């Protein structure tokens, strides 16, 4: 059972974490080569954040710092760090990612709206491709396409979504 103080700490933490979760997730994704890696680093990051959380530091930069550290440690452990960007580019990405002031909630909602705007076939492709445990080669075979054709389609859809999210958020800011 948690004590009242622990409960309180948990509440404050959860609020901050949820607020910055999407931004962190995106940043982590930009640092590691695959989605699976990003999931693991994100889990590890969240665990460390919770363990070390106190109110003394500004949450967002602190959390980004932890995420960066965890991503590097993860890649080093798996000897995949040859592909990792150097300190300079990483710092630039960190600054850029932190600057995006929008909240996780807005970003998530924008992505959801943009998904709904996709043509049905494209939306279904995304939903299938990102479902847990799906293998691209199998998906390609069942769709009667080459894996490369599938990767390219998904690439185009991601770019469309990125543009759409940007646009949606900009419009919101203008209205606000």
């Amino acid at each position: 059972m948690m004590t009242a103080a622990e409960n309180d700490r948990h509440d404050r933490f959860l609020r901050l974490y949820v607020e910055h979760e999407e931004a962190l997730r995106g940043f982590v994704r930009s640092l590691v080569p695959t989605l699976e890696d990003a999931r693991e680093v994100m889990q590890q990051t969240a665990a460390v954040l919770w363990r070390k959380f106190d109110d003394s530091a500004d949450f967002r930069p602190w959390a980004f710092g932890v995420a960066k550290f965890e991503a590097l440690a993860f890649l080093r452990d798996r000897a995949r760090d040859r592909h990792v960007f150097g300190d300079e580019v990483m710092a630039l990405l960190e600054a850029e990612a932190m600057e995006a002031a929008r909240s996780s909630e807005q970003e998530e909602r924008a992505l959801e709206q943009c998904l709904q705007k996709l043509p049905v076939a494209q939306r279904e492709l995304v939903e299938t491709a990102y479902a847990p445990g799906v293998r691209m080669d199998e998906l390609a075979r069942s769709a009667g396409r080459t894996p490369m054709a599938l990767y390219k389609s998904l690439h185009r859809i991601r770019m469309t979504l990125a543009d759409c999210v940007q646009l949606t958020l900009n419009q919101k800011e203008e209205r606000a």
Partner: protein
Amino acid sequence: MKSSDTQMELVRRYLGGEATLEEARKLESMLAVDAQLRRDYLAYARVEAGLSSKVRPKLVKAAPRRSVWLSWRPLAAAAVVIGCGMAAWWQSTAVAIEVLAAKEVNFRSGDRLSCRTIELEGGELTFRLSSGAVVDLAGPASLALLSPMHVRLAGGQVTVDVGDQAKGFVVDTTTARVVDLGTRFGVSTGVATSTDVAVFGGSVEVYTLGALADRKPDVKLVEGEAVRLDKSHAPTRLKMIRVGEGGQKLAAHSHADVVSGVTDNVIEDSFRGFYGLMRGGLAEGSPVYTSGHTRTWHSMPGETFPVELLGADVICTFSQDRRQPDLEISLMVERASDVFVMLDTRAAIPEWVQREFSDTGLHLRSGPWGVLPTPTGVEENGYVTHAVWKKTVMQPGVVTLGSPESASGRMWTAMYGIAVKEHR
């Protein structure tokens, strides 16, 4: 995206894990000097990360439900604090559940909430995930909900019925990963030691964590099979599983058990059938076997279920047993008990039964038997009559049962049933 197609193609390859070292360096040098590319790169990464956390397994055409699930999302953070455990909350975003049944737990049937983990000190909770999978959790247990298709059992036992909708459902423990292939199965784990897996229908693939890397399952189990996985050892057959209602879910161990163990003399490595011990379960409609659950016990036509047998512990056998001429099944009996065997009346009475058991004069029927396998003389969807024989043991100890076949036995007879009731 304002960056060029060539640049974005490089981004795709890098984030897809396809980029060569040279390509990674090229992207890095471009990112170092191009603020627009950095923005596009991050926007692209955010979309990808967002999709991975957003996209849920597709619901099978039951579209109306989807909107209901989604509409709870804003409540997620609050519900975690109120309703569900928080120990491992970070492992995913909260997952929506609908409580179907609860016993000694502070949720009620019909409750809808979002959880990241569920901690049960005791009691039982049955809930449905948006993937359609129905999860039975028996306390004490700790279960992390990673997605509607993926849970992690930190301790305790869980039975999952994935139905037709959630093939590919995954249960992780600290020692193994169980991937369902359309089925109903149970997983039980202690603290970081071993994992038990039993399949009640369909089939599953089981991976120890070591095997996960090369994507080859250590073992594939089908209905009626069970194994234990330790961190260091190959899967070993679990000979007995305690089952609950209908013989199709795991039940908790109890010190009050009259039968504390069931084993046999089968040594074949590839054989993984389990005996199902169902406490107090014998009644009209209770299961006969651990595979082929459609075959159940029934009273004779026009009669009520014999009182002497009602509420006895049922030991579900597997029907392959009937072909084992040297079979010995041993029951560990903890108290003075009546041990019943229910014998197919079409076959000769095995010698070991004649020697040690007495005929109670009672009869039960098993069935319905489908077309395959068709024991001789049984119609399609017919019933087999069993004569009930009894042996009373006054001391705790091992009771050994033999093969269903007498020396002159026919091939197509049904495996006998077993039941045990405390002697009064």
